[in-house]
């Protein structure tokens, strides 16, 4: 997938209809066509595939100034996989060295352990104090999710399914209570949950940086663990981890790689947690809540057609939980994983349009599956609760 040459023909499918102008968050903020999916792939084609233009600093800037939110890919009527083309271009431009050596080392450590453990964890409070780490980031949880839950959590009542729960870095290190909510709500609804050991980051941060080596390492590690389990499904609470496993993992491996077949089989089993639960149906009635909430649809939703409606349908079962829709529930919040740390002003601009939309709903609570969205939205919405839909559902169950 990270071989730009493989996209030569797909780039020519762009008709220049400009429909990506409707959803590209960077374009909508900058209002400059150069910073638009259509222009980005056109420039990649001209400079990197056809050699009609030199590869310049400005080109790198244009290729990097993209959230990889996939909104353009989802909007494109000609099915051009813009996000993959951008990732492939980054790989070719940076050869995995977009960040400095020390930063890469620390990232790699954190990815392998799914969170800032060891030295990084000790350094985190100091870094925060010194203003080195972004203010939006919450402090890591006292105890990681993988220290709270391990092994098999049995289903309550008759067992309806057995699933493996893939916990990504954010849930593991920063939002373990989200993981707890997922496990408890699934168990309450007759799902046996296996929390496997030995997992690592899904690899998406490496994809974003065009770091193929690290990406393949993470994919091999996780596929090795998850594909070996005897389960009906693999669920994740994070829409971005889900995107990686469902739509990218098999593609990033070399063609003759023995892991590829297992990665493909795994992709067939991957579900986002609310999507899976909604597909299975609730068997335990949640209790009432007195709460007005709005639902922010994560950008990385394209890998399952039912993902965006699942939280709505589940929470509609909770009496007293009043859903107020935003005008643009699917508009990006500006986080883009760690993008907001690098492009502060741009991300804040994107976010302020989102928070204005949220404000107009008069909701005290915002739910969304993506942890990066939760972190970044919470920082932009002081005094408001930003939760995973499973966490709100867990409250309705009285957990």
């Amino acid at each position, binding site marked *: 997938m990270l071989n730009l040459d493989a996209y030569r023909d797909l780039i020519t499918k762009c*008709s220049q*209809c400009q429909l990506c*102008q*409707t959803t590209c968050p960077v374009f909508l903020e900058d209002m400059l*066509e*150069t910073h638009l999916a259509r222009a980005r792939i056109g*420039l990649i084609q001209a400079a990197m595939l056809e050699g009609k*233009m030199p590869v*310049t600093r*400005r080109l790198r800037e244009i290729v990097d100034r993209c959230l990889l939110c996939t909104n353009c890919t989802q909007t494109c009527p000609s099915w051009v996989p813009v996000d993959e083309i951008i990732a492939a271009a980054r790989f070719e431009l940076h050869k995995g060295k977009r960040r400095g050596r020390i930063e890469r080392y620390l990232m790699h450590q954190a990815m392998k352990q799914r969170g800032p453990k060891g030295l990084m964890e000790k350094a985190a409070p100091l870094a925060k104090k010194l203003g080195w780490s972004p203010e939006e980031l919450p402090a890591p949880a006292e105890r990681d999710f993988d220290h709270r839950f391990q092994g098999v959590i049995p289903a309550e009542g008759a067992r309806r399914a057995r699933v493996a729960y893939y916990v990504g870095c954010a849930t593991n290190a920063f939002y373990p209570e989200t993981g707890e909510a997922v496990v408890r709500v699934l168990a309450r609804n007759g799902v046996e949950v296996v929390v496997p050991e030995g997992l690592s980051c899904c690899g998406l941060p490496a994809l974003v940086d065009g770091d193929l080596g690290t990406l393949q390492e993470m994919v091999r590690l996780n596929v090795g663990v998850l594909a070996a389990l005897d389960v009906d499904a693999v669920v994740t609470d994070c829409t971005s981890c889900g995107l990686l496993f469902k739509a990218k993992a098999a593609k990033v491996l070399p063609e003759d790689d023995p892991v590829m077949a297992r990665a493909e089989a795994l992709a067939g089993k991957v579900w986002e947690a609310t999507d899976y639960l909604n597909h299975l149906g609730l068997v335990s009635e949640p209790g009432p809540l007195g709460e007005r909430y709005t639902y922010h649809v994560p950008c990385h939703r394209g890998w399952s057609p039912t993902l965006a409606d699942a939280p709505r349908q589940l929470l509609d079962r909770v009496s007293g939980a009043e859903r107020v829709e935003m005008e643009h529930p699917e508009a990006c919040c500006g986080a883009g994983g760690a993008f907001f740390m690098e492009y502060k002003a741009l991300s804040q601009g994107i976010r302020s349009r989102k928070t204005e939309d949220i404000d107009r709903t008069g909701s005290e609570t915002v739910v969304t599956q993506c942890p990066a969205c939760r972190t970044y939205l919470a920082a932009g919405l002081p005094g408001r609760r930003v939760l995973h839909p499973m966490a709100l559902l867990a409250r309705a169950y009285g957990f």
Partner: protein
Amino acid sequence: MKGLAKDLGGLIGRQGVWSDPEDLYAYSTDMTHYLARGMPEAVVLPASTEETAKVMQYAFKHEVAVTPRGAGSGLSGGCTPLHGGIVLDMKRMRRILEINPGNMTAGMEAGVVLRQFHNAVERMGLFYPPDPQSQEVSTLGGNVATRAGGPRGVKYGTTPNYVLGLEVVLPDGSIIHTGASTVKYSVGYDLTHLMTGSEGTLGVITRVTVRLLPLPPTRRTAVAVFASLDEAATMVAEITVRGTVPAKLEFITQGGIQIMNSFLDPVLPLTGEAYLLIELDGTPAQVEEDAVRLEALCKEMKVLELRMVPDEKQAQTYWKARINLAPAILSIFKRMIIEDVTVPRDRIPDFVRWLQNLSASIGLVIGVGGHAGDGNMHPTIVLNDFSQENEKKAREAIEQIVKYGLSLGGTISGEHGIGFHKAPFLLWELGQTQIDLQRRIKQAFDPKGIMNPGKLWNYGGAA
């Protein structure tokens, strides 16, 4: 021109001027990128009329070409900067200034996106009918500059039927306000409608005033499947003869439906050769009456199937699929050339039959679809093999289509405009006397020939 970007940055601030080769390349075409590309020397994004005027004063003084641009989604090459100079991207001027339900009018800056404007007026129970299929991105300024229209043309007409007044920056930088905020207006030459459709060759449209209608309370979408192109074409004229004017009446062939099906659930059956996608609107009683009449007519015409779409939410997916149709053609073919010939409605059967024969005799795939209700057809040549021979055939086919459309009493462009793509055919439709007259009008507005040179009147900088 040396120092152009620096000078312009000094006039309106550096955040509004871009001139790296990458930025220039990003602004070098519209949807006709396979026909021509023109590299500008600077991309300028004015935030106000005053900034636009400053840029024009400068361009006038230094005789720099200026190509105004909306969304860049045009189909005629109208905003391709063939002669370099400045591309004036109007999309940062995107404020809706007023929606006046009492007067049924609205005023806005030229860069307002049509979809945003539709949403804003419809929330207030008002209706702005023009609906070019680029409506998700196209700007009001661009719509006015090209006399844009869409499916609703059959019942409601197109952009010029709604424009009441304009603010225009003339080539020398002076600002004029044409028309009024009234439906009636009888003062001198109608400059509002001269600017409407002028494709950026006379001045820069910076503000637009339009009239509005009440939003029809009910809409209903239906699809009729026909065994032959001929039957579908005959039906188009018959519907209106029987007294129903649908809000939209789209003619689509099986190939088009195949593509649209990838956006539809449930999909449409591929049993027909041609399909009509219809929207009825009005009061509930009127829509019901029209629906009954449509069903009776379909029975009489022996359509293979009539699907009445059950609800508005599902109906939206059909119209979204229709919007996606043109760009999605490229997911199958490598190139498409979309024509815009419009013929009198009752000549559609002749036109469709003739096109089928042409496609067979010249050996090219020519799809035909369009807003048949108003006679606006979009014969579309699709290619997978760009051999010189095929390119030549395509050019020949376009010429023949245009000539045949004219011979039926039609016109070479219903809603896309002329740009450079159709400029060679102007003589056939207008004749030399009209062309000379129109060129004198151009010269009166733009004596230095700096406004969008190379468009409409196929000549360069000199007027």
